[in-house]
């Protein structure tokens, strides 16, 4: 498992423990986060994104903004599944480290 995968999955687990209103949120790559069949509402998604950003900064020492215009313009929704979110976060971390 990549470093970023561990960070995101741990953040999802912690988020689920803190937000019992989202019982369907399991830390599995195929879990649909948002949209049709998603386990989160819009506010839940915002909170999860903030939690993941915080975890990335705390664990990897990299400051990233996951929910910016680039994410919204992306061809494939980076918030659709945990796999998509992890992949998008990995790209942002890579870009930030390379900057």
């Amino acid at each position: 498992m990549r470093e970023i995968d561990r960070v995101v999955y741990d953040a999802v687990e912690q988020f689920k423990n803190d937000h019992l209103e989202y019982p369907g949120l399991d830390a599995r790559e195929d879990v649909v986060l948002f949209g049709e069949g998603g386990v989160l509402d819009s506010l839940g998604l915002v909170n999860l994104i903030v939690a993941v950003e915080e975890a990335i900064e705390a664990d990897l020492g990299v400051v990233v903004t996951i929910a910016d215009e680039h994410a919204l313009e992306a061809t494939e929704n980076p918030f659709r599944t945990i796999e998509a979110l992890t992949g998008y976060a990995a790209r942002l971390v890579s870009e930030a480290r390379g900057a």
Partner: protein
Amino acid sequence: MPDAPPVMLITGTRRGIGRLLAGHYATAGYRVFGCGRSALDESTGPAEHIVADVGQEADVARMFGEVKKRAGRLDVLICNAGVTSGNYLALTPGETIRRVLQTNFAGTFYVVRDGLKMMMRHRSGRIICISSAHVPLATPGTAVYGATKAAVEQMVRVVAREAGPSGVSINAVGLPALDGGGMAEELGEKRIEATMGQLPSKGHATIQELIHAIDFIISAPGISITGQVIHLGGA
């Protein structure tokens, strides 16, 4: 509130209202962070001062990074930083609109957004935005300034709905001319006097009255006090 002193960030603390608030809340037991576009004039100030221009998104991100690094959390955020503009619309250059919007609305937006994200992590927090009596009074000569404050008030009402589920409240306090606030000097004494004459209080508010309103918001046990605008002076 946590065992450690509660953490407060006040924007615009180099002078005026911000500086008065920073002094009060530091004395009251808060760990107070402040910011301004330049360093403090004196070597010591009431707050842990961070040089940052709220109208610059990168500055705001760096400021919250500093607060996070030093204190690890944020309990109260007071968005006070702002610039004034007093001129009739027909005489107002476009550059004034951009400058005042950038600080008063965009700056407040950046600060609220990044502060809210810090508070969401702990599922609690209080955000207070400073507005102005010029919004309800529609004082001639404040089309730009008043519009930016009206925008802040609308943002407060919207964000209250978005932040509530995370245990964060957001409110605004609208000020008439505040003693020691500096607004009278910048907008012109005559215009301020005309404004005051329309208010039930007929006079300037005091810093103690502002602190009373802020304490009322901060001390609320829950978030039922949210999305509100409290206008001092009866505006």
